[in-house]
């Protein structure tokens, strides 16, 4: 997910959804099966899931929000999947794969006998048709707000229509035979494999895409309108559930795909009902009108538990950090950066402001991600050391301009103003002077920090897929004005790691990069925090995925 879990441009969709919700609620019937009434038989049970909002669109290529991917993850499948409950790569529609020596050619062996919900066969040609569709997007479909993840991973299109797009990493897809897909890249990249686990790369039926005019997008980049019906009425994939109907603002139904190639879903039906507020979702669960929901407020966990519900922890796959922009002279001083790292009592910040399960972060990636080992320099809370470093820095009475955002709460930064105040007190105790600066999260704060105009700033990152590149590479692979530093050693280690096909060598490179980053202190990572989901007592087999790739087919009700 992008830095801002629910991007602003989705707000428009949510607002529209809410408006529809009101009208739908006015005329909607009350024919919901009560969870208590159904769900006794393992074969004929219905799960009611409280979502936070309506999905934006059910065409995987066009969404980048968690509400949409939660649904499309059940309808569509990707070439490679995320391992259950983790972030590693597991077989998906491809049973096996090979990456060439130079990391430019990926060969996927497809599963045999897989059929789309419309009866079409999933073969290499169908897979390549999807890749070619994404690569050949034109017009509005190229905008960041429509095909965000294609742009993020593959950088550009066949014919780029904007200067901000780069040369595409995609070099072509060939169906070697019915069961073999060969994906070519224009540059070596070892990251594409784990990026392909993103729900946005779900494989859709080429026939349905064509029949229901999936590529028709109108409106504006801020508020795209999908005129085709593929993403709203006919999403056709290969997954364990089929689309069963969608009344915006009221309910979205999925029904079991009885022709599924793998283990069939235990539920016969899933109904998603949008309930915007966390407190209302918790209340709905306690009242027994829904079975499960995501993004529980840590403050509600105790009452949920005492009402007999289960609380599930989504392992942290994010990190909050205090960033430094080295645009200003004082932040170029490494002793000052080290002094800040020693001055901040990160343990106290995490304890005071984060819920159960949150941990201190020591690196710019979650400690659950592969290649993480703590053999790098760490900075313990030590005021005397900080004072000593300030003295050595040669800066008399250092003053720090410190920015924090208002109007935002994220798992990695629950209360930004609270974090700011704790850190300010710590910095002042070590002898720094702090000048506070604040602005609304979007767009002011994000713009100022990205331009590097904040010497000290609070930010964080939610991971998209299980690759260190998604964290370290995003931050430090090349010069960015946000950090405003050039450290060729770090840039090179991360660049090499991105291109290295050999997993063991990649691991070594990321370890090296983590060590270099820790010594250089471009910022201070301080928190990684889980998010929480809740389910009724009788819900079994739900494994929340750290990267939000939950497969609800494993759930049963008893």
């Amino acid at each position, binding site marked *: 997910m992008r830095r801002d879990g629910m991007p602003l441009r989705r707000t428009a969709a949510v607002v529209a959804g809410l408006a529809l919700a009101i009208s739908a609620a006015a005329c909607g019937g009350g024919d919901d099966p009560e969870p208590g009434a159904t769900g006794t038989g393992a074969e004929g049970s219905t799960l009611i899931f409280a979502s936070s909002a309506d999905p934006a669109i059910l065409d995987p290529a066009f969404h980048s929000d968690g509400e949409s991917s939660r649904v499309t993850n059940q309808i569509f499948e990707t070439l490679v999947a995320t391992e259950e409950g983790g972030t590693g790569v597991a077989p998906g529609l491809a049973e096996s794969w090979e990456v060439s020596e130079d990391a430019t050619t990926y060969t996927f062996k497809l599963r045999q006998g897989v059929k789309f919900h419309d009866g079409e066969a999933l073969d290499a040609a169908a897979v390549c048709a999807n890749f070619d569709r994404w690569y050949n997007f034109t017009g509005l479909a190229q905008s960041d707000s429509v095909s965000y993840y294609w742009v993020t991973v593959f950088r550009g299109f066949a014919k780029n229509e904007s200067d901000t797009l780069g040369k595409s990493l995609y070099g072509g897809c060939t169906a070697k035979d019915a069961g073999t897909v060969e994906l070519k890249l224009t540059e070596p990249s070892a990251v594409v494999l784990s990026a392909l686990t993103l729900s946005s790369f779900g494989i859709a039926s080429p026939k349905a895409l064509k029949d229901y005019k999936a590529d028709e997008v109108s409106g504006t980049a801020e508020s795209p309108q999908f005129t085709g019906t593929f993403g709203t009425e006919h999403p056709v994939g290969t997954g364990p559930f089929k689309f069963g109907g969608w009344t915006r603002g009221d309910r979205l139904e999925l029904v079991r795909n009885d022709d599924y190639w793998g283990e069939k879903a235990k539920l016969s039906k899933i109904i998603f009902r949008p309930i915007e507020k966390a407190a209302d979702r918790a209340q709905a669960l306690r009242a027994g009108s829904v079975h499960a929901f995501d993004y529980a407020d*840590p*403050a509600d966990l*105790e009452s949920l538990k005492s009402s007999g519900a289960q609380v599930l922890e989504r392992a942290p796959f994010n990190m909050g950090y205090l960033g430094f922009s080295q645009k200003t002279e004082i932040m170029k001083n490494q002793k000052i950066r080290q002094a800040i790292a020693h001055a901040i009592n990160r343990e*106290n910040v995490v*304890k*005071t*402001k*984060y*819920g*159960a399960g949150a941990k201190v972060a020591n690196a710019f990636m979650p400690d659950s991600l592969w290649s993480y080992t703590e053999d790098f320099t760490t900075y313990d809370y030590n005021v005397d050391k900080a004072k000593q470093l300030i003295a050595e820095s040669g800066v008399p009475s250092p003053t720090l301009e410190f920015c924090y955002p*208002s*109007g935002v709460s994220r798992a990695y930064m*629950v*209360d930004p*103003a*609270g974090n*700011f*105040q*704790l850190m*300010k*007190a710590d910095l*002042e*105790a070590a002898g720094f002077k702090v000048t*506070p*600066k*604040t*602005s609304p999260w979007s767009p002011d704060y994000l713009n100022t920090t990205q331009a590097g105009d904040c010497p000290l700033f609070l930010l964080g990152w939610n991971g998209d897929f299980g690759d260190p590149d998604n964290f370290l590479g995003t931050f430090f692979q090349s010069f960015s004005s946000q950090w405003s530093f050039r450290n060729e050693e770090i840039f090179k280690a991360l660049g090499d790691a991105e291109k290295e096909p050999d997993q063991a060598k990649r691991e070594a490179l990321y370890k090296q990069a983590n060590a270099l980053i820790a010594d250089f202190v471009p910022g201070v990572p301080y928190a990684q925090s889980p998010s929480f989901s809740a389910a009724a007592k009788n819900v079994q087999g739900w494994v929340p995925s750290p990267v939000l790739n939950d497969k609800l087919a494993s759930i049963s009700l008893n």
Partner: protein
Amino acid sequence: MSLAQVETVAPEEAGGSLGRDAWRRLRRNPVAIAGAVLVVLFVAAALLAPWLAPYPPDKPVGQVTPTSIPGPSAEHWFGLDDLGRDEFTRVLWGARWSLVIGVVSLLLGMAGGLLLGLLAGAFGGWVDGVVMRLVDMMLSVPGLLFAIGVAAMLGSGLDAVMIAIAVVNMPVFARLLRGQMLAQRRSDYVLAATAVGVRRRRIVLGHILPNSLTPVIVQGTLTLATAIVDAAGLAFLGLSSNDPSIPEWGRMLADTQRYLSSAPLLAVFPGLAIIVAALGFTLLGESLREALDPKYRR
């Protein structure tokens, strides 16, 4: 005042200046005493906060977590806040900030209002028309909304808040002073002064203005109460200092919203402080108004 009444008044209390008379009435009014006590308490807390407060206002002094925020105890009379700071200390320091914001914004607003009122009242004619239409326009926008607009325009910061509150209060003072001055202008002594050839500036500044100030003083006391409440309101809405660690009552209220179910006292203490301070100034202001009003003079 009838002749019969005059006879019943004790000699030392009869006659005397309006000021002495007012002071006597004030002293005997329990409401005024209560108001004065609250105001004295508030001002004392504000002035003596650094010496009275047992802990630093912006440093954590104990460990808290989102689910366990200790309430009142012997060491921490009002408990700890959501960042582990001493709540009693912060409420005390909050008085200091409220007083600063209240007094500064009051003085600014008074100065601006008096200037406008003076212009209108002294010159009359088209100047009066222009100034009063401006005042009408300002008064037609609801106060807090107006303040939000002004503060948002000026950008974040305490000075923006103080200016916003001052701007909102300006028209009230302008209208008040102008009304008083118009009444004075037609009075006999002004006519007399004009007749003997006293210069206009001297009449306005030396005679009309001092004689018109009494209601302004009363209004000032009352405005201090609303200024404190307005400042808290603006802070609650996020318009306050850039530094959230400044103990400001409205901000303290806003910041503890999310702990309303687990630690409700964190909202109660700053809320009570706001009420007490505003009540003190209101009671005092109202009794002052009564005391200074010649209609109540016996």
